[in-house]
């Protein structure tokens, strides 16, 4: 999936303007001309200038080729797979606290592997085994407080 430089440049231009506008309000170091605003304002201007250059090159390439959809991006299934990964990780962020690492990680792995067409039984075995190994490595050896979970049955 390739988006034309002109459109990307437009998005970056908006970002640059927002950065300059927002950071102009940051206060300076007392008694100095420079402070919290100096650097982000400079970055914002940098973004504006590069965005302008990108718009110029994009228009030269021809805006008609606005969105070149090739390779994986032609398949709606591929989009669904990428979206599913993002949603699953977000679910882990939201619910791992309650589910606990063991349950949350096994569910996440199983869902991903089934989506990638791993047969059910191997997918389940590997999900469980990988979860246990990662749990042992991080919670066991490295003493990372992975979430235990608050559901009575799953809080192993």
């Amino acid at each position: 999936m390739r988006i034309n430089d002109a459109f990307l440049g437009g998005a970056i231009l908006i970002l640059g303007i927002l950065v300059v506008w927002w950071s102009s309000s940051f206060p300076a170091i007392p008694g100095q001309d420079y402070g919290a605003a100096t650097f982000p304002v400079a970055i914002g201007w940098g973004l504006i200038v590069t965005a302008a250059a990108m718009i110029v090159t994009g228009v030269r390439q021809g805006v008609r080729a606005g969105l070149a959809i090739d390779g994986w991006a032609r398949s709606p299934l591929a989009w669904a797979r990428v979206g599913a990964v993002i949603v699953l990780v977000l679910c882990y962020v939201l619910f791992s606290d309650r589910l606990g690492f063991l349950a949350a990680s096994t569910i996440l792995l199983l869902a991903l592997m089934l989506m990638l067409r791993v047969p059910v039984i191997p997918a389940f075995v590997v999900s469980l085994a990988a979860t246990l190994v990662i749990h042992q490595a991080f919670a066991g050896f490295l003493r990372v407080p992975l979430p235990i979970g608050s559901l009575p049955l799953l809080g192993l």
Partner: protein
Amino acid sequence: MDALGTAFGLVFDPYVLAVILGSAAFGLFVGAIPGLTATMATALLVPVTFFMEPVPAIAAIVTATAMAIFSGDIPGCLLRIPGTPASAAYVDEAHAMTRAGRAEAALGTGLLFSVIGGLMGTVVLVLAAPTLADWALSFSSFEYFWLVVLGLSCAVFISAGSALKGLVSLLIGLLLATVGLNNPAGQPRFTFGSIDLMAGIDFIPAMIGLFAVSEVLRAVAAGAPKADVPKGAVTGVFRGQGAVLKRYRGGALRGGALGTLIGALPGAGADIAAWIAYAVSKKSSREPQRFGTGHPEGIAEAASANNAAVSGAWIPALVFGIPGDSITAIVIGVLYVKGMNPGPTIFIHNPQLIYAVFLTFFLANLALLPLGWVAIKSAKQILRVPPNVLMPVILVFCMVGAFAITNSVFGIAIALALGVLGFLMEENGFPVAPTILGLVLGPMLEQNFITSMIKADGDPLAFFERPIAAGLGVVTLAVWLIPLIVLALRSRSPAREPQPSEPR
């Protein structure tokens, strides 16, 4: 020499040696899997090293990267898919040798010359770093400002693809670095009222996202296809390598020197070193017509160059705290976490740690010879690991790693956000390395810039008053102006070549 003795004690400790062996196996595995890069090996290792003492932590990273850069040659040779981008330059050559039934010779050459290149880079690192550090002791904020700008500029102009997109990538990294309270004025910036963002965007979840989560997303988008592993065992890896070594020793030396130099340039790493070394080898060869038909000469020089670059990248990282490539950008972050702030003073205050790093480099590169042989022998098993099982496991590993740094799911959210960002950037031809360089160097750049501006009272000429600062400033400006002048001259000439499509 007392420090050297201490360093020996630090490195030749059973625990450290076990860590080296473990990370060697890890690095060889990750490098040999197509789609998993040496940078990703480092990204996945960092959360684990977070809990180690400084010496084993650094040893783990040094070993894993040296191994991964070599083992990237294995799928390149057998499947024509480079395991790491650093092997891409000679993948066709190596695969041509495999088709001619000489896979073992191609892999043997790759391994032997990787070891030679890695050792050469290490020797230069050992000799150059302390001397440079001595000189760097007199640097003020002006010199550091220019050094950082020079480093970042090189990252923009040397990186693959368009310089414009490299610049955007760098600015995004610098922008991410401004989030939080950590700035000269101590003001909260871009925190959206979030307490988690007050502390800024932690670089470990960020680089796990940029380099590992983005790769998982890419693999998932492609449906994690399986590779076709050729049949038949690889035997006699070292047979006839003596003759190859004798014949191409000049090329190996040149590749090692070139690789070290390119590695030491900020922003250019092992992949660019390999491309340039391969091209130089072809240009100066007595039989350039044989290149591309399964001829070991280019492989020898480029394999030597990419491993040398891994060591060379540590020179600016240790001496100035300026990374030579995206791996050392990660390393610098790790050094700060370990309280070993990189810069010339580390050579005075902690010489035993520096010697320990040097020793690890020698050890890792020497261990590459037998361990690389084992990896070649087990290549077929490694390549049979199905990606549709591996990628989900890597994703969970990323998530746990991002969580472990602050023990909060906020790290996972950052890794996910930057993973999506990195994925979209790569899809559209933006190099990702400048982003991580910007994120790591942003605070240092801002600090030196603001300090210098206050010292100079806003006078830009003050940035050129000290001789070294002036020299660095002029070089930096040249890096910016020369491409612009070339561009201007080119657009004035009437016969304009058609716009080439940018490489993916």
